[in-house]
């Protein structure tokens, strides 16, 4: 699964720490998701989408093999 969290953060001018605080997770979690080491739960994906004011599908997308 791919995501555009890094781009969305840049648009909103948020650091990984800012985003982590906004959705109540650790900084490591945001970093692990951004670097594709961890796939977030639906709840977390929805929370992130809400921060960016977008739909989950705009941020997360399937890759070949998923």
């Amino acid at each position: 699964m791919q995501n555009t969290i890094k781009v969305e953060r840049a648009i909103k001018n948020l650091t990984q720490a800012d985003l982590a605080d906004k959705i109540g997770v650790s900084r490591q979690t945001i970093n692990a998701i951004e670097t594709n080491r961890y796939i977030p739960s639906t709840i977390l994906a929805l929370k992130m989408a809400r921060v960016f004011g977008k739909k989950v599908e705009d941020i997360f997308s399937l890759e070949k093999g998923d």
Partner: protein
Amino acid sequence: MRSKLLLPNRFKWIGILLFIPFLVLGILSRYKEFQIDALTSYNHDNDIFTPVQNFTDELALSGLILSLLMIAFAREKQEDEFIYHNRLESWEWAVLINFLLLIVACWVFYNEAFIDVMMYNLLTPLIIFIVRFHWVMLRNKPSEEKN
């Protein structure tokens, strides 16, 4: 979040502080035959136990296990689903590596040396878990905080 078995975060540091003296005590009691005299019990009218028994090594081993348990089960400042996932995966690694090492050890070490290995083996699942868990946390630290 879901992990109900965790201790408050400060237990990580309490565990680290306790681990060091118990490690020293363990090494001294195993290799230098150091004993705390106050921990000797005399059972002259008992046939089951050896008449003179010193509990220094028992104290050292219990202390080592307890301090490692505190480090392993201390809550992170912000527990969430990724950390929960990291915990489970790290236990998986700990069990797997522990038994693979044990297979190697049983072919490589014999007699007294194997007894030593078995003693370390009592602690290795906890140690491997702690190292693996914290390595993943460190690797995923945001780059803006690494500097």
